[in-house]
């Protein structure tokens, strides 16, 4: 129960943190989507209901803050979570290269999906952003995903003296 109560607060904190970091490091030109990495991580570590709810909340909060239309990131995050969840049955979390590659591909697909959506539905001409923004952001997520996984694993070991029981 505590998980469900803390989830909105956690999502706010994570998204605020990623906004602050992006502002400080890239002066707001690029985003560091820690929330997206959290969703991918949730796909590997949480059960279906908890993870889906987390993806929903994170996506919704991000939508409220940055999306041109509410629901876009919610849908994408849920899809990303489901992909991670399915992949978690065949991909070992210890294989750091695959995790990085998966994070990169997920992020790239997500960015391209957003651009296509904006182009087709909202008539925003943002195709030029693919090499300038999408690719660097996908690379950043690809690099940060293994690091995040490693840190979370350390945290789990620190908290429960072993890997999370989830």
């Amino acid at each position, binding site marked *: 129960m505590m998980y469900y109560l803390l989830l909105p607060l956690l999502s706010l904190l994570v998204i605020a943190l990623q*906004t602050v970091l992006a502002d*400080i490091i890239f002066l707001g030109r690029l985003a560091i989507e820690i929330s997206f990495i959290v969703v991918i991580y949730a796909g590997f570590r949480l*059960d*279906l209901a908890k993870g*889906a709810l987390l993806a929903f909340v994170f996506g919704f909060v991000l939508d409220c*803050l940055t999306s041109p239309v509410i*629901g*876009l990131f919610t849908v994408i995050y*849920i899809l990303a979570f489901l992909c991670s969840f399915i992949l978690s049955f065949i991909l070992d979390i210890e294989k750091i290269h695959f995790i990085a590659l998966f994070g990169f591909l997920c992020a790239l697909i997500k960015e391209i999906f957003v651009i296509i959506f904006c182009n087709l539905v909202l008539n925003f001409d943002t195709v030029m952003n693919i090499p300038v923004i999408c690719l660097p952001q996908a690379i950043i997520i690809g690099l940060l995903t293994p690091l995040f996984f490693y840190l979370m694993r350390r945290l789990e070991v620190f908290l429960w003296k072993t890997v999370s029981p989830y």
Partner: protein
Amino acid sequence: MFFFRNYKSLILVALIFIFALIMLSYNVKYDKGEGFFRKIVLEAVAPFQSFSHFIVKSVDDSWERYVTLVGLVEKNKQLTKTIHELKAELLIYKEGYLEAKRLGTLLALRESLDYASVAARVIAKKQTALSKTIVIDKGSFDGLRTDMPVVAPPGLVGRLINVSWNVSKVLLITDENSNVDAILHRTRVQGIFSGAGLHEGKLKYITKNQDVIRGDTIISSGMGGVFPKGLLIGQVKNVEKHDKELFLKIDVTPFVDFSKLEEVLVLVSEEKEGKQK
């Protein structure tokens, strides 16, 4: 019921996803950016964004200040360099101005004299205990000869003692070996002006009964055939009368400041008709 219990999570996820899709499609059509949840989230994140803005602004300001400082250092270096260059340039102009001023005085002197003259630049000075001479950059090729008088504003400097093709040596009137036939301008009493060391001279052979006072002007007498008459030599600085001696002891300060000599005139002939260089 069994199906629902087994696939509870799956159904929940499907419902969440469908809800998200409905939310998306609804908002695509009707969202005007004024949703209740959007407002709540914006309010909740605002303090963090404000903090991040503060951090970013601080970093940005610091960076800008740093860049400005780096720019200022460069600019300072450039300006310092420019100042040095301008100072050097100013010095050249000042030198030119002073030279023009000196040459103007020299020219005035040249005009005032009834002699043809050659202007020369002092290229060396030798003012030791035994010898007080200067070297000028004109010689026999310019028509100079030994014993020609040398003047500079406002009066007599000396005479040529060695003349080479392009340079000449001038014996200053302050040299102990220099003697100039002179007269006191006020009383017309005649004597011999001799050098007496650095920037000093003596007027010799003036009998005790002569009227000589401090401040009297001494000019060349024109006798002896070396120096023309009327050239300013110096001013009486001190007069002493000793009972045991026949003559007055008169100390003279030359008019010309030998320490600042840079250009001189060599009087080449008594007539002004000759070619002046």
